[in-house]
């Protein structure tokens, strides 16, 4: 009971602390956007706290005391902003925008009520929640690397399992309710984050459209409630692009958060490592003259990057795709010159896009028609490069290609899907604004 109380207090204080920091560095963001970003960063911070506890073989109560000390130190230095957070706000401040968001939450919840299962998909209980159970007791967490559970991919990063294990320790039980609630919150946060980000840009039409897309998209909702890490990764990729977009208008200290969230992608899944490296290289190249910005970006990414590197270097086994057991790596020429493999991947990709990601395809078509230049932007180049790398990985996979594609391709698309919808709607909004300003100027003449 004491542990539960301490966990609740710590999580709440941690959240308010994160909120005050995010608010300070994210000038111009609306309150709902700040709150949502803070919840995502809270998840990241919890998992980053949990890993050192495992690596140093410390108890959960030691971790709680450490978090409490950090929280108290933060309150001591920022009491005025804490007061601001607690300030009473009645429901009279609810406006029409919040009302639509609440409506979307209700619809998404109805889907959750009807279709959420207790243990999620096979991947959820056989990989992610199994890992969470294996790391739930710090003294036994090395069991994660036992050959007997090698089928569960022990090299997978631990953000989702450590969030679940943190709350399992907090409530003192390995209840399936915790992963269900984590997946439910991810299901809600993604559409809301896109909605409030687009509202923040001042375009209601596309914000509403984003909300409608996610409310009616059964494929998104099915994967979101499956309790797997793909939705968490898609959320962090989305937030990285939102922070990057807002960087242009407010280049001060937001870069810290950008670096932090981008590096945290690598702590969710191995695909996140690829995204993190690509984004960082791109960011480095596009800002090489701005040393101050780069410095802030690298400071922001230090902690998550250290956690990922230490996990990969000191604990995790090699990934099956890049290990010495991948015989395809020794016959690269044969694999790369096999046109049949290219065709199989291409056909499978098109089929998956048509059957599961129609809203994205329609938006891509519209943006291609109205604003092709949008596909030359930095985020588009990053997403395209990501897809090219995934394509190459499928070419050299040691597994049966059809099996590998059928079990993973839809998840790879899911990881970039929310960011893609956000970026496409954003580029449409820019066309509309530019169109209006041209019309306006012509009218003035």
């Amino acid at each position: 009971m004491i542990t539960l109380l301490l966990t609740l207090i710590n999580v709440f204080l941690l959240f308010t602390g994160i909120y005050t920091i995010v608010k300070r560095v994210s000038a111009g963001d609306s309150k709902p956007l700040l709150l949502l970003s803070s919840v995502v960063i809270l998840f990241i911070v919890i998992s980053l706290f949990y890993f050192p506890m495992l690596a140093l073989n410390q108890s959960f109560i030691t971790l709680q005391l450490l978090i409490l000390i950090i929280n108290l130190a933060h309150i001591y230095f920022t009491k005025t902003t804490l007061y601001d957070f607690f300030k009473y706000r009645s429901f009279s401040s609810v406006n029409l925008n919040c009302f639509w968001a609440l409506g979307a939450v209700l619809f998404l919840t109805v889907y959750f009520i009807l279709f959420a299962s207790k243990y999620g998909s096979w991947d959820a209980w056989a990989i992610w929640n199994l890992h969470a159970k294996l790391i739930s007791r710090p003294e036994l967490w090395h069991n994660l690397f036992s050959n007997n559970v090698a089928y569960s991919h022990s090299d997978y990063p631990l953000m989702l399992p450590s969030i679940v294990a943190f709350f399992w320790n907090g409530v003192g039980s390995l209840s399936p309710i915790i992963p269900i609630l984590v997946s439910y919150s991810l299901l809600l946060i993604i559409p809301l984050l896109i909605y409030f980000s687009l509202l923040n840009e001042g375009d209601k039409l596309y914000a509403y459209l984003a909300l409608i897309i996610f409310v009616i998209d059964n494929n998104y909702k099915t994967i979101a409630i499956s309790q797997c890490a793909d939705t968490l990764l898609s959320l962090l990729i989305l937030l990285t692009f939102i922070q990057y977009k807002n960087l242009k208008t407010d280049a001060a200290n937001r870069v810290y958060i950008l670096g932090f969230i981008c590096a945290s992608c690598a702590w969710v899944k191995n695909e996140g490592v690829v995204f993190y490296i690509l984004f960082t290289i791109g960011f480095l190249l596009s800002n090489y003259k701005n040393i101050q910005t780069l410095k802030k970006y690298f400071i922001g990414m230090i902690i998550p990057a250290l956690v990922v590197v230490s996990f990969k270097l000191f604990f995790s086994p090699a990934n099956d795709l890049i290990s010495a057991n991948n015989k395809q790596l020794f016959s690269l020429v044969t694999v790369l010159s096999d046109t049949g493999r290219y065709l199989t991947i291409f056909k499978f990709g098109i089929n998956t896009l048509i059957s599961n990601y129609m809203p994205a395809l329609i938006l891509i078509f519209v943006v291609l028609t109205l604003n092709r230049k949008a596909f030359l932007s930095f985020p588009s180049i990053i997403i395209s490069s990501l897809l090219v790398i995934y394509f190459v990985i499928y070419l050299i996979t040691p597994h049966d290609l059809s099996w590998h594609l059928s079990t993973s391709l839809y998840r790879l698309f899911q990881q970039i899907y929310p960011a893609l919808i956000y970026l496409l709607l954003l580029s449409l909004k820019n066309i509309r604004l530019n169109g209006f300003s041209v019309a306006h100027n012509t009218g003035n003449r």
Partner: protein
Amino acid sequence: MNLTKLKYTAPVLIIATILMVILKLYQLNKIDFDIDILAKQLAPLPKYIKPNSTIGLYTNNSDPQLFMEVQYIMAPQIVSNTSVPDTILLIQNKAGLVKTFEHYRTIIQNQDNGRIVSLITKDK
């Protein structure tokens, strides 16, 4: 839209959503899935197993998913279906061929849902 109506509708929406989620969690907690049924049968076992040891698994069920379900239920305890350590967990369908192990003694056994679950250890 009338802002006064919004003022009253918003809390109703929030409360309705929270209540729905609570009811869903309550319902899921009440339903027993395959994993829950097996978990109930395996529940008495961990207190007879040293936390940091590996136990073997023998089953006369050909379903490969059973091993993963057992591993999930028993975690953070490690279960092996390849090596044969001193302690073995037997999960045998009564309908199948029930195997007996010589030179092993039974620590605990229970029968339910047409399944015999036993924890056996090597005689010293």
